[in-house]
């Protein structure tokens, strides 16, 4: 070996060692409320998104490229939600999975449409977000569908003429919209008389007073459009009064906290939701097992949504061809969910089977397949 060969060899090693490896990962953003009151469902969504990304990466990623998740906390504050999405957009994410509440999704809607960022929400369902040809996609049915299912169930199963709804105005885009759809449906289906009481969960509400006010209207059915802890506390008030009246809840409240904090009367709650805890198909069961192994906690409905959102995002990115937009792929593909097939209509909204859940012996169960 000549002297110049040795010199070249040493220089090559020096140059190679100074080179940094460039990553070829696919950036996917997640944005949701991960802290503060009511953040538990969102953290469950986040966990499921992480699990799905880990599993996809173990299988070789998307077309050989690993997924790199960028996770942002919108803290349930619209400005923070916008800031989070701006940061994700600046980082160059392919799409954003989120937000986890309708209010936050609404807050960023203009921004994502202006910048043509595909947003795939696992749990947003406000009607305002639906039926628009835009970059917002939701794998969750609209409030209208969910409220109609609940109303139909109430009409079919409960007697009476009065229904009173207690609505958390903190997440008003979702809650008010939900209660309005419920009202229209219940009035149409069985001619119930509907009354609504609003409160703000961030203003340290007095649930005893709130329940007194609601009960003064002598309802035959109580509707609680609130998060899990508030719902649990209000059910506890019914329990203390010995009033075993049926309660219609919303999927926002459906998590372990409701069971833990709600006491025995949570078994009077009926919630329309997308997943069916009773379904024990292979994929669904496998996911629940893997989720438990990874996080040592039960996978509830929001976890299923998060998992499906990540799977859909990955499949869409995998199918996407050059010169094809992600939006086109999402609109033109039928995806396999854990329980059923998922396809989007022209507005990026889904029409999926809805189930009525309740709680028995400390677990959520499916009492009826509504639609």
């Amino acid at each position, binding site marked *: 070996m000549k002297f110049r060969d040795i010199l070249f060899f040493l220089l090559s090693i020096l140059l190679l060692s100074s080179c940094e490896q460039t990553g070829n990962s696919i950036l996917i953003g997640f944005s949701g409320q991960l*802290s503060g009151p009511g*953040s538990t469902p969102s*953290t469950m969504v986040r966990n499921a998104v992480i699990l799905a990304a880990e599993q996809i990466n173990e299988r070789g990623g998307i077309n050989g490229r690993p997924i790199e998740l960028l996770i942002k906390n919108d803290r349930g504050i619209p400005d923070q939600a916008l800031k989070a999405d701006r940061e994700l957009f600046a980082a160059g994410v392919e799409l954003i999975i989120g937000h986890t509440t309708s209010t936050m999704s609404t807050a960023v809607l203009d921004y994502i449409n202006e910048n043509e960022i595909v947003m795939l929400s696992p749990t947003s369902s406000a009607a305002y977000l639906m039926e628009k040809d835009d970059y917002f996609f939701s794998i969750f049915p609209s409030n209208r569908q969910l409220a109609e299912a609940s109303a139909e169930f109430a009409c079919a199963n409960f007697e009476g003429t009065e229904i009173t709804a207690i609505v958390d105005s903190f997440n008003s885009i979702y809650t008010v919209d939900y209660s309005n759809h419920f009202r229209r449906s219940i009035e149409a289906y069985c001619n119930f008389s509907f009354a609504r009481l609003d409160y703000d969960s961030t203003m340290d509400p007095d649930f*005893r007073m709130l329940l007194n006010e609601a009960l003064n209207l002598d309802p035959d059915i109580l509707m609680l459009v609130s998060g899990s802890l508030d719902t649990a506390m209000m059910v506890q008030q019914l329990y203390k009064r010995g009033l075993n009246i049926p309660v219609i809840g919303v999927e926002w409240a459906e998590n372990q906290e409701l069971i833990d904090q709600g*006491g025995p*009367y*949570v078994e009077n709650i009926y919630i329309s939701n997308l997943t069916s805890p009773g379904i024990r198909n292979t994929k669904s069961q496998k996911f629940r097992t893997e989720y438990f192994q990874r*996080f040592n906690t039960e996978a509830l409905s929001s976890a299923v949504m998060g998992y499906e959102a990540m799977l859909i995002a990955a499949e869409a990115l995998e199918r996407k061809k050059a010169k094809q937009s992600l939006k086109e792929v999402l609109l033109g593909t039928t995806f396999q969910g854990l329980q059923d097939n998922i396809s989007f209509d022209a507005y990026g909204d889904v029409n999926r089977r809805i189930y009525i859940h309740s709680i028995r012996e400390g677990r959520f169960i499916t009492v009826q397949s509504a639609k």
Partner: protein
Amino acid sequence: MKGTKSIRRVLFIHFTSASLIPLLLLLLTLTILLNRNIRVRAIESNEALTTSVAREIRSYLDYIDSIGRWGAFHARVHGNSPDELQYFLSNMSSYFPFFESVLIADPAGIVQATYPADPDMVGNNINGQPFFQSSVATGKVQWSETFISTYTNSPTLAAVFPSGTNYLIGYINLTHLATIGKQTTSAGTSELIILDSRGNLLVHPDYQLVLQQYNFSQYQMVKDTLNGKTGFFDTRFEDKNVFFTSERIDPTGWGILVLQEKREVFAIAYQLLFPVGALIFLAAALSTILAFFSRRQVVRPIYQLMKNTQAIAEGRYGVSSELSNSYREMNYLVRTISRMSEKIARRETELKKNLEEKEILLKEVHHRVKNNLQLILSILNLKNFSVDDPATKAVLQDNIGRIYTISQVHQQLYSSADLAKIDIASYISTLTAYLVSHTSDSQHDFRTNIQIDDLAIGIDQAIPLGIIIFELFSNSLKHSTLSGQVKTITVKGDILDGEFRLLINDDGRPFDPSLFSEPDSLGFNIVHELIRQLQGSIQYTAAEGNTFHIDFPL
């Protein structure tokens, strides 16, 4: 020149190696020793820190446990009415402001009293809480899983203490753990991570991750720690290379990880090694530059020396006896070569002079030999005129021709610049011209064809060759004169494969080959004898006239 080493390159490599290798070895040794030392210290400090944090947290949990048990015991004896229980909780909390909130519930889970007082809460049923159910079922103190409290937005732990027929439930804000972590790790580069039994973060340098309930059980080290496999590890964690020591805390099943990022651990080594490395690099650069200039200093005089010897080799002896900016040893060498060159020049001059003198002498000898032979020729010619007998005349004529042939060799030798060799083409042309002019019949018409390659040969070969040509050529001339049949005599000479080939041909009537092979004439006998002397061969061919092929080595 290929295959030989360059003194310049060897000097450069040796010089730089001699300076670089010790420096690099020094750097390597320093690096190894520093790394080993730092690693050992990191392990020791990490283990000490982990033990310390674990002890702190155990004390903390023991303290919670003892207060809870104390409270449960006193609540039992304090009374059982809601007011009495409420009063007791107020007193307890004022003495031990430790629990974020505390409540008493009956075995059915119905809340009897709370502190801080919360009328909303009293009467609630907490039987849905798994840790409460577990305590009721076992009658033992039970710890909950950690959770982010909706009220405090902090990681929280609940503990249930059986209190007679009731249960005292205390909620503990775990932000205190972060304080313990900060106190223990503030002095060094360590980071503290505490996880609950599911792998959820309770303490992390980034508190937001705690609030966002991040679960770290995807890391094998976390799984191992929570499963009781603890100790010191060197691994990757959160995209960093870390040293970590782990310990598991009972009864909660939490895991404690004390991490040190290796980059920070070895920062001091980098800080130390960087200037040392820079100095070594500088030294290496300087030694390389020095090696380069030293090489020039050493090699330049050698190059000058090479030029001097080259000049001497080419016969230019006037070389300088001094080198500019050179060394004593080199100058001595140059002076020696210079003296040697002067002596060679002197001897060469003397040799040339001697040679010239000898050449003059040799020329004179040749000249005198030729003159003497010429004198003999003149005498023989005079005799020839006086002899009438044709036979005698013929003998005289032949001998005159032979002597002429020899004298022409000497003539050519002293006339030419080279005293050792003669130009054979010129010699043969002169010889044949002489023979034609002295032997041929002027009435008979014929021609000669002489074609001889340029060749110079020595006197030892020139004289025999000349006499051979004389004998054969004059024989053809005689036949031409006698019979008139010979029209052309050809003499051709060329060189092939180191041999001189001569062809002598006439187009006269062929004679009996036996006359040549078994000669009784003097001429052919002389020819055979001279051929043998030349170590050559001769062949006669009687086809298309008479042809002689002669070959002899040069």
